[in-house]
């Protein structure tokens, strides 16, 4: 038994009930051909990189299943003859790539109409955290440089105040600049 993954693009007109019916149909076909469905994911309506059958958008559906692979040819023909499927691709995957089914198909489809909330929000927070972490580091480095600059400025002020010790202080400044370069 091998593990396979099928990605197919459904016509964007199909939504909710009809989309659900089509997904159930394809699953039924796989089951009839001796396959065992492990994971299905409705990825939602996306803009395609190039138009297929004059459509700019398409609903992406992913199915992972286990079968001996002898009936994959017939399954791909079935998808090809279905006018509601714009494009499909069957690939061989390893067992480690198979994901666990957590959400029901109906929930997934109904979730598409909802504003994409949780996942995107999480991603955003992760990104922002990453950026803040970098920013903190930058702040630290910049603060260090700032303190050095301040010291140099103070030394310069002292130069202006007492001219007698000018030579000595100038040497100090040169040392400070050398530290900076390091």
């Amino acid at each position, binding site marked *: 038994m091998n593990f396979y993954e099928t*990605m197919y*693009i459904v016509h964007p007109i199909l939504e909710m009930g009809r989309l659900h019916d089509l997904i159930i149909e394809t699953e039924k076909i796989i089951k009839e051909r001796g396959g065992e469905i492990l994971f299905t994911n409705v990825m939602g309506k996306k803009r*395609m*990189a*190039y*138009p*297929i059958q004059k459509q*700019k958008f*398409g609903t*992406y559906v*992913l199915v992972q299943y286990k079968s001996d692979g002898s009936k994959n040819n017939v399954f791909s023909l079935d998808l090809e003859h279905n006018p509601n499927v714009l*494009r499909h*691709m069957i*690939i061989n995957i390893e067992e480690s790539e198979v994901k666990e089914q957590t959400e029901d198909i109906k929930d997934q489809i109904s979730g598409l109409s909802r504003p994409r909330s949780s996942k995107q929000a999480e991603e955003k927070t992760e990104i922002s955290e990453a950026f803040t972490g970098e920013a903190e580091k930058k702040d630290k480095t910049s603060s260090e440089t700032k303190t050095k600059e301040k010291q140099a400025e103070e030394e310069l002020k002292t130069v202006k105040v007492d001219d007698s010790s000018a030579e000595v202080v100038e040497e100090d400044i040169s040392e400070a600049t050398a530290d900076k370069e390091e």
Partner: protein
Amino acid sequence: MAFITSKKICTFCENHDTNINYKEYKILRKFITEQGKIIPGFVTGVCSKHQRRLGREIKRARNVAFLPFTYDIRHH
């Protein structure tokens, strides 16, 4: 577009967590030109092992219209 010329360390060897997969086409997008061509490994610094996987996954992503075969101004 990612023309990394100064540091030529394979990004996928550095981060083992990054998965080369056609579904994660946003990562793959960095390794194709504006015209949709695959950028050679010696330009991006990707090692030959990962470049082979990249090529395979980019070609898969093209077949399901995640990535373009070629850039056409009429579609944008």
